[in-house]
């Protein structure tokens, strides 16, 4: 039995754990530069996480097991998702067993428990955050699935490895369905990872916050895990987008040199993705909550148009 894929798999999971704070640090640094502020350095997220791990956990009196269990679950699903998305190699054991629908479901589980935990304590903010989160989820998940189905149709498979390979080898450069799916994916990613037109990760303003409202009661290592998982989620969405729409450079030969090359490409793609993200975030203002239906509605529209143009035009 070939052990090489397992090694790549483990390496990849470790890589995701390691670089996701750096990626978030990179995005924050870019944002600071673009706004003319001095940065705290790309390593600041690591320091934050370390500090939180060192602190005590302070639990509310009426917190149930759900509240204590959620951080571990959220972190666990993020790690698992990190093993599914092809980054270093196409040939991953986890990717062979779990397809893209499982990936969406993993994110959904994490979200479900986060919202439960938000309501568990019974504070006003937690409940408000949870309700908002669920509003977004109910709109973004269908759109997400629609976008993914479009890609799966084009690749004739829901397995991520398969999709990457098909798109990699395909001759067609300009596929309207892929373009639409990509646009939809960008919009959904912004909503799913709580970035600017939908949610602002940098504020605790009670009128607008969504994700931060749910995790307001967490402290110590619980908060560290959730924050870390959030960073991983952002990185993973970036990597997923890169894998689905710009798969060039991902290794499918199964050699160490190939894996290294993929790593270089991955870092380059993440860096570029960060720039794009910052451009979007500085270019747009945060939307009112009521306009989110329009935002996610257009994401759904794009995804559906992608699927239709697959049938009509290809």
């Amino acid at each position, binding site marked *: 039995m070939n052990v090489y894929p397992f090694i790549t798999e483990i390496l990849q999971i470790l890589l995701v754990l390691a670089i996701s704070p750096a990626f978030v640090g990179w995005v924050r640094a870019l944002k600071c530069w673009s706004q003319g502020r001095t940065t705290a350095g790309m390593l600041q997220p690591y320091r934050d996480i370390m500090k939180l791990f060192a602190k005590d956990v302070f639990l509310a009196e009426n917190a149930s097991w759900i509240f204590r269990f959620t951080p571990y679950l959220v972190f666990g699903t993020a790690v698992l998702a990190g093993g599914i998305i092809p980054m270093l190699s196409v040939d991953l054991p986890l990717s062979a067993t779990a397809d893209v629908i499982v990936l969406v479901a993993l994110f959904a589980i994490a979200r479900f428990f986060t919202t439960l935990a938000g309501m568990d304590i019974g504070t006003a903010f937690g409940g408000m955050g949870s309700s908002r989160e669920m509003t977004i989820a109910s709109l973004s998940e269908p759109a997400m699935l629609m976008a993914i189905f479009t890609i799966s149709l084009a690749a004739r498979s829901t397995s991520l490895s398969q999709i990457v390979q098909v798109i990699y080898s395909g001759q067609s450069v300009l596929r*309207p369905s892929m373009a*639409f799916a990509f646009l939809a994916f960008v919009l959904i990613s912004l909503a799913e990872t709580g970035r600017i037109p939908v949610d602002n990760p940098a504020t605790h303003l009670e009128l607008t916050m969504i994700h931060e409202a749910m995790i307001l009661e967490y402290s110590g290592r619980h908060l560290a895990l959730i924050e870390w998982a959030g960073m991983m989620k952002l990185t993973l969405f970036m990597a997923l987008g890169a894998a689905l729409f710009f798969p060039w450079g991902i290794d499918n030969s199964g050699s160490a040199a190939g894996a290294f090359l993929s790593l270089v490409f991955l870092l380059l793609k993440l860096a570029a993705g960060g720039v794009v993200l910052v451009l979007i975030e500085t270019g747009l203002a945060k939307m009112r909550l009521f306009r989110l*239906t329009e935002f996610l509605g*257009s994401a*759904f*529209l794009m995804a559906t148009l992608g699927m239709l*143009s697959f049938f009509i*035009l290809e």
Partner: protein
Amino acid sequence: MEGNFWSLAPWGRGLGEGYFQYSDMNLHIAAQINSFLAALVLLTAFGMLVQKRVYGLIHLFAWQGVFLSLNTAIVGFVAGKHHLYISSVLTLSLKVVLLPYILHVLINRLRIRKEVETIVNIPMTMMIGIALVIFSYHLTAPVRELSNLVTRSTLAVALAVVMIGLLMMITRKHAVTQIIGFLALENGLFFAATSATYGMPLVVELGVALDVLIAAFIFGIFFFHIHTTFDTLDVDQMARLKEGD
């Protein structure tokens, strides 16, 4: 006189097909560019359907014209139909430059530049739009099966653009918006002609362009009439003619 003198014009058929040889690969790429532009045209149609600002609408309309004109030129190149170049230039000058300019001037003159229109239920409108796309796809199925042109698959998109223009005219209540919907509908028709048959005969296309031009002047006059009579361009104000009274 023997024969139709219109078809004897220098740009007519006769010159063309044999001049260039295209490999399958080229045709393949052209078909892809073509369908990609079709997708963009459809996207702009949807954009117009939900765009609230008059100004943004005109921009979207101009972009649609750009994609349409590009598409026509590419089809003309691939198919060796040189009269399509004329249609392409006509589209570019009429629908990208002249009409947006006229609308622009009118909007400035009437001081409605910053007006924002209320649209009821955007998601619902979008869903209807999607349903219309599917409907057009089914409707044009027999044509698609019979045709062997590179552009045959875009006919469904063209019909969808026509239908979406229609939907836009029904759902929107602003006179300018309705006119833009009408023009978008006209774009869809032009696109249909290009994709089903590599364009109508030149004399017909010229005539249609003339009609659009006259229509443009008429709606320009209308905007002023409506504005001076009703003090707004909201068509909902015009509801005096009803049945039975």
